[in-house]
């Protein structure tokens, strides 16, 4: 393993933490601009309807109302994140002919205060012709079902197929075959900051947007195209973002409406969603129906898999196409699989659009795969961990048509979690109502497939160094709470040997930071932006190295070290110069030209999916109350390979947060819907686990050194959110004999599964 600078692997406290905990951090809703107007939006009360007539005259006449817009007033340019496939771009900022879910935006108002805007919204008259609505994927693909989008026959907007190896032949000759259908539900990100935007007009028809997003560059491009103005007339600005988890990675209607009305009125326009609106209409994780047939040889080797998935996409594509692709990819990650067939369909329904959410198709795909591994292990007489080890990927393995796995600590993770959880001992001494379950995962470190069709590199960094001993990083990467503002500075400081407080950061400003960055999703930021930074710091070092060679008259064979705000000769540390002094001398030598360098990263020759893969395994220990069906998670044990952790505390934070989300997904969170309406749109009834619900947790990191990652790092963000559902599901089975194939595992399902609920 390579030796890293000492700042790598340290638990550097989050640099943004003091501002956030003292309330000084500026979130979008904190911004107030002179002359600012307040935007409210009218949304469809119907799940599926044709718009016959809209009358905004009364709203427009209300004193204090400065603008009212409907779809017909806008350029009507469709948008969507998959620019590579223009026909997948199926959204308009405001509905024109049809509304397709309860919450579909129909009109927007800008007024002097929120109350007037709200009143104006209530004065807009819309005449609808209600259309039959579809709420399940099965109904949507049925023959003769009404079409939600005319162009998508059978209500399927995208199909993804993977096929390699002799799947049918393997099933025919297999020792053991099982097939199951799993149903998983939609859940929400429940980010702490509801969606918010503020747009201000700028000279020359330009517009500046502060918005709660995890993809400023995508918002910039799509906002420009929907407004019909040049890309660089839109500036998306840095602001503190209170979480995203995949729910804030697209252009959203209010971003368009604020900008459009700001340009029309010449005044800033602000929009803020309430929690109730966010829970009712916001993006969700895809509910899915997953049919999976797997075959094993007698020695426990997995030999074939047939995986057919229907994704409940809701009314628009959003990030659904990516989820459809990735669900198929995750269907054969982690384990060696010689024959695989995947058929994934993204299906429209008249519900709020599903989109990306932490894990991006993986929590669903692995719930199916891992549940089946545990079932197969039991029926074939294997220990569930042994069966996984038999099939686990190893370093150098190739995922057909996808990637080569350059580092893989999967088997070690499985062994470590076995030891950590006391697996063997506890399984020997089983207690009634008590169970242990295992699940594993593999995840990506950023995506390769360029669905946004960016013309720039995937990540970029600019580094400037000064003779006061400081450095300044410019990066479009956005910290949405996950910590890159700290980790990226750590990478820069480590490579230049600076103390971290010497590094300033300007982030997430599309007008000032180098082009471009695809955003915070797919666990890509540390690896991709880290690599871009290291390319830039390498160039900076090349500007400084000549200074020391000249100063100390060094032999060609000498090498320099950058540490403790100094640069020195490795073989003779007494020959040293402060970083500040070196920059000063270099600046003189360059006759005043500042020391500035850019670095870029785009994964190349890395297959179509990801430059690097993380692995891990988790054991859940549960106690099930046999009379009430309540599942109590006693403890979670995790062992995972995230390469070299850059910031240990940040990795721990990701793990804790992942367990919290995994608990909610598995046990308590679900949307109760009737006729396309969400009935539980408060945190009282949409039950996100709280700090008090968190079980104790133990974890161990299996370190590998990923050659493609900065200082050996790879993904540590989303992967950990994957295994919890199947681990708890397996543990509940061990405790009760009830095998859950349809999340969430509610007390009622447990009791019914035990035959105890009439």
């Amino acid at each position, binding site marked *: 393993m390579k030796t890293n600078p000492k700042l790598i692997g340290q638990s550097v406290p989050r640099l943004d933490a003091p501002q956030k905990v003292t309330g000084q951090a500026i979130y979008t809703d904190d911004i107030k601009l002179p002359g600012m107007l307040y935007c409210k939006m009218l949304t469809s009360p119907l799940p599926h309807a044709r718009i016959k007539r809209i009358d905004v005259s009364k709203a427009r006449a209300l004193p204090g109302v400065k603008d009212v817009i409907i779809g017909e007033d806008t350029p009507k340019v469709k948008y969507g994140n998959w620019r590579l496939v223009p026909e997948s771009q199926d959204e308009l900022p405001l509905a024109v002919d049809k509304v397709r879910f309860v919450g579909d935006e129909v009109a927007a108002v800008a007024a002097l205060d929120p109350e007037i805007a709200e009143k104006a919204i209530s004065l807009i008259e819309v005449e609808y012709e209600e259309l039959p609505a579809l709420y399940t994927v099965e109904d949507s693909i049925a023959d003769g079902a009404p079409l939600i989008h005319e162009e998508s026959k059978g209500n399927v907007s995208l199909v993804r197929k993977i096929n390699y190896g002799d799947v049918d032949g393997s099933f025919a000759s297999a020792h053991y075959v099982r097939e199951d259908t799993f149903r998983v539900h939609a859940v929400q990100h429940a980010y702490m900051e509801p969606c918010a935007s503020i747009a201000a007009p700028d000279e020359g028809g330009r517009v500046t947007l502060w918005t709660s997003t995890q993809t400023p560059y995508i918002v910039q491009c799509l906002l420009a195209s929907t407004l019909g103005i040049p890309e660089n007339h839109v500036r998306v600005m840095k602001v503190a973002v209170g979480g995203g988890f995949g729910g804030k990675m697209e252009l959203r209607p209010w971003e368009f409406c604020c900008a459009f009305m700001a340009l029309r009125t010449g005044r800033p326009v602000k929009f803020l969603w309430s929690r109730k609106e966010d829970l009712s209409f916001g993006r969700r994780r895809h509910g899915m129906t997953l049919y999976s047939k797997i075959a094993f040889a007698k020695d426990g080797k997995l030999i074939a898999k047939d995986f057919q998935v229907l994704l409940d996409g809701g009314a628009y594509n959003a990030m659904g196409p990516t989820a459809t692709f990735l669900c198929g990819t995750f269907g054969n990650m982690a384990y060696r699989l010689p024959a695989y067939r995947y058929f994934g369909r993204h299906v429209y329904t008249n519900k709020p659009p599903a989109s990306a959410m932490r894990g991006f198709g993986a929590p669903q795909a692995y719930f199916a795969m891992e549940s089946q591994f545990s079932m197969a292990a039991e029926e074939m007489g294997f220990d569930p961990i042994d069966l996984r080890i038999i099939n686990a990927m190893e370093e150098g393995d190739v995922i057909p048509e996808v990637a080569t796995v350059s580092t893989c600590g999967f088997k070690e993770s499985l062994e470590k979690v076995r030891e950590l959880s006391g697996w063997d001992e506890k399984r020997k001494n089983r207690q009634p109502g008590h169970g242990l379950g295992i699940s594993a995962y593999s995840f990506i470190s950023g995506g390769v497939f360029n669905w946004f069709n960016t013309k720039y590199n995937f990540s970029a960094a600019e580094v400037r160094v000064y003779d006061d001993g400081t450095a300044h990083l410019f990066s479009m990467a956005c910290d949405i709470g996950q910590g890159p503002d700290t980790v990226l500075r750590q990478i820069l400081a480590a490579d230049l040997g600076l103390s971290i407080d010497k590094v300033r950061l300007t982030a997430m400003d599309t007008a000032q930071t180098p082009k471009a960055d695809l955003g915070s999703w797919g666990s890509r930021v540390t690896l991709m932006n880290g690599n871009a930074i290291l390319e830039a710091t390498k160039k900076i070092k090349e500007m400084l190295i000549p200074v020391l060679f000249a100063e100390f008259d060094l032999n060609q064979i000498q090498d320099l070290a950058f540490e403790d705000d100094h640069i020195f000769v490795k073989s003779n540390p007494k020959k040293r110069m402060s970083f500040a002094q070196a920059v000063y001398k270099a600046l003189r030598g360059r006759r005043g030209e500042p020391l500035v360098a850019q670095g870029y990263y785009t994964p190349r020759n890395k297959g179509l999916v990801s430059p690097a893969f993380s692995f891990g395994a988790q054991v859940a220990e549960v106690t099930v109350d046999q009379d009430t069906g309540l599942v109590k998670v006693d403890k979670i044990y995790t062992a995972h390979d995230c390469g070299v952790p850059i910031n240990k505390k940040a990795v721990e934070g990701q793990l804790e947060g992942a367990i919290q989300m995994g608990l909610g997904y598995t046990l308590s969170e679900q949307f109760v819907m009737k006729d396309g309406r969400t009935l539980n749109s408060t945190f009282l009834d949409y039950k996100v686990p709280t700090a008090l*619900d968190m079980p104790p947790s133990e974890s161990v990191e299996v370190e590998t050194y990923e050659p493609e990652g900065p200082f050996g790092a790879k993904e540590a963000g989303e992967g950990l959110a994957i295994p919890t559902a199947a681990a708890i599901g397996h543990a509940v089975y061990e405790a009760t004999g009830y095998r859950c194939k349809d999340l969430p595992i509610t007390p009622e399902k447990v009791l019914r599964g035990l035959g105890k609920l009439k």
Partner: protein
Amino acid sequence: MSLAHFEVHQPTSLAQALDLLSAHRADARVLCGGTDLVPKLKAGVIAIGHLISLKRVPELDHVSFSPDQGLVIGGAARLSDVAEAPGVAENYPGLAHACSVMATTQIRHMGTVAGNIANAAPSGDTAAPLLVHDAVINVVGPGGRRSIPLADFFAGPGASVLDSLEIIETITAPAPQKPCGSQYLRLSARSLVDIAAVGVAALIALDGAGRVNRCRLAMAAVAPTPRRCPEAEALLEGKTPDAGLIAAAAQALSAASCPIDDVRSSAAYRQQMVGVLARRALEHSLKLAQGGAQ
């Protein structure tokens, strides 16, 4: 939505508070913790011009227990005050439990027991444990004072017999007759920081021969109001308790519940859980009572 405009009054005596309430009548509400009222104001469910705060009324801010007086909870006593007051955990463990696990830490430091009762939510957590202790709601209004047994207080979901010009002055409960045991159990999807989907309280007092001379069973969130169930109680009273009798009483309580299907639970599950919780609460109460007799 943002809050509508209203005036806040901060009387410093009970008399002032009553005068203000009479002066503004239907356009006023009493505010103490505000943990139920303020969300309703924000949501526009309630629109009023005057809020009369009881936070500065010293006569209402107390909680005490003595063997003679029993439990006396002032109208402004906060949930956390009651949970921690001397004598409460020992003599009214169900109430202490309710006051220390319901809602959230922040809400328990703001909200009051009287407010929880006056709000009259079917799922109110303090009601069932107070019902098994034969609590009485003592109110004061323009016409003077009156005492209402808690069992007669609720009139339906969100409704009670409290007049809009009256204020809850105290909630009282007699000191439990020894040996005695009681418990309140609640069930919800989250273990904590959650509203109860089912709540059951039980109390068993024994005579010298080990027979049940008093049984109380009450339930919450499974009927239009929190309520007792005399039919179920009668199955144990006067008898030497055993598993069969406890199961029968629990079954009777379950049968007397009439829960609804809602976003929190199905009616069938709730009804069955009433029986489970009742059996557990009775078993635990009996154990406590028997332990106390030794």
